[in-house]
């Protein structure tokens, strides 16, 4: 088993009295692109919230480098663990460069507001996400895909070895979804960051993840490399969807093809 800087041990996750997950244990392998999948309300976003310190577990602990994440100061966590939430808000009238610069907040102080490092890292982050030519454009005016790349640039500027993404492709059309995921894959490979994302689309997850966590009803059903764990049986068990799993003709990763609706005279399986 590979090493892991971030994981949850015996987590009980609940909102008020509604328990979402009980005795949940997960580990995020270092330098992996981990994707959490599962049907709606399986607890995948809740798990991500717990891992990112937004939700305090009712029992158990999220460990970051071996320490309970809630015992660490918020700023110290923010220098190790970045988060791109599902629907962040761009303030009215803010331009791209200014928004990306906000990613530097955990590294700044009252008397160290804008160092040369800040300036350089913001420029690099914008270049890495291909928004360097949008610097003085207003965020409100951008397309959905561009905007998501700007948010990713902000998260990159935070310069954390670990980066959590909550459904980064929601609200995007298919081309922009692929664009964002390609970007994530590139960041993972080139910069050696550990990425954890919640995704809806099983085929995207199977294509891009190096480590997959499949959840159902607050439990981890399977975890591992997509090629090893994505089978028709698993998809049926997790999503209740009859299907076939074939090789993706582009990448050779598993491709889930839902079974056709049974009709007279056709063979479905």
């Amino acid at each position, binding site marked *: 088993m590979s090493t892991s800087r971030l994981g949850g041990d015996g987590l009980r996750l609940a909102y008020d009295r509604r328990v979402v997950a009980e005795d949940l244990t997960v580990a995020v392998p270092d330098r992996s692109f981990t994707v959490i999948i599962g049907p709606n309300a399986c607890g995948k976003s809740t798990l991500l919230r717990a891992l*990112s*310190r*937004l939700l305090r577990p009712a029992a158990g602990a999220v460990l970051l480098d071996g320490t309970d994440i809630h015992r660490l100061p*918020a*700023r*110290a*966590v*923010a*220098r190790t*663990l*970045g*988060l*791109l*939430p*599902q*629907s*962040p*808000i*761009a*303030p*009215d*009238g*803010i331009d791209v460069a200014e928004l990306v610069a*906000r*990613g530097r*907040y*955990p590294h*700044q102080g*009252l*008397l*160290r*507001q*804008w*160092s*040369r490092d800040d*300036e350089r890292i913001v420029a690099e982050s914008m270049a890495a996400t291909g928004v360097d030519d949008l610097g003085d454009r207003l965020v409100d005016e951008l397309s959905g895909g561009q905007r998501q790349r700007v948010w990713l640039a902000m*998260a990159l500027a*935070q310069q954390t070895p670990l980066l*959590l993404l909550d459904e980064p492709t929601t609200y995007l059309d298919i081309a922009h979804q692929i664009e964002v995921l390609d970007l994530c894959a590139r960041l993972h490979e080139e910069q050696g960051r550990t990425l954890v994302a919640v995704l809806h689309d099983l085929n995207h997850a199977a294509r891009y993840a190096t480590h997959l966590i499949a959840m159902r009803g607050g439990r981890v059903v399977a975890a591992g490399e997509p090629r090893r764990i994505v089978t028709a049986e698993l998809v049926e068990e997790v999503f209740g969807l009859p299907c076939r799993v074939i090789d993706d003709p582009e990448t050779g990763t598993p491709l889930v093809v839902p079974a056709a609706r049974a009709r007279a005279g056709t063979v479905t399986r």
Partner: protein
Amino acid sequence: MIVIRTPARLSVRLRPRVLAVGTVCLLLTVGVGVLAIGHGEYPMSPTDVLRTLTGGGSPAEEFIVTQLRLPRLVTGLAVGTALGLAGAVFQALVRNPLGSPDVLGFTQGAATGALVVVAVGGSSAALAGSAALGGVVTGLLIYLIAWRRGVHGYRLVLVGIGMSAILTGVNGYLMTRVPLMSASRAMLWLTGSLDGRGWSDAAPLLAALAVLVPALLACAPALRMTELGDDAASGLGVSVHRLRLLLLAGAVLLVALSAAAAGPVPFVALTAPHLARRLTRSPGVTLLPAAVVGALITVVADQVALRALPGQLPVGVVTGVIGGGYLVWLLATERRAGRL
């Protein structure tokens, strides 16, 4: 953006426009202040005023300036600063341009405190203390009712509006219980006035400003992060709930103490942050410019009330009319621009 860096790896970043607007407003405030001190039954020229302020005046001038006119001016400046700053904090906290102490019920709470003292009869020190207490208790109540795993913008606004409605009713009842002789004192207080303010009226507020202005300004960068939403701000290392509690406490204290000093001067807290944002053209949180603009409009309004209109009106009448008018104009133009 200008960046100033020192060899000791310190760096400060500011917008030139903010600096320019701040400087102009400060100079204007000083100018209006000098004119204000010169105005009265014993008129003084600006040079006389400056000479007296720097210690070169006759004993009579010295007395008029430092004991009669300066306290009123300083109280006005302090109240304006406190309200402008508190208004900007409230608007950022509830993420709503209408989030001001007038709307959220803190002002009404302070009025309740004051009216209780008027009804039972008490010194003006007791009245001020009770007004401050009323504002703080209201803040505490709103916080306790709105708290649910942290305070969220909308809950705070709704609870505040409810509280404000209840307290308006309570205040109406108290007014009917006030003896006729004291009713005019109560009405004058409720309008917000700087008449006859001495150093003792300004002292508690000045002390609070000395602590709270630096404290609130230190929170400004974190507050700016919360504009991105609570989750994103937490991800950037902001302890969102603790920050809210701190800011709420600081802003409530400022509003309560400024009500104690001058009564509930209306609309400054609502108008100053808007005006500051428009003048500086910067998006989002602008605490320091709002404080400076608040001070300026309060002393200008007081001068307008004293000079331009017959009968020496209280400052609250002018800020109410100007502030209300500005708000209506703002709503009309924002509506046309499709933003509201």
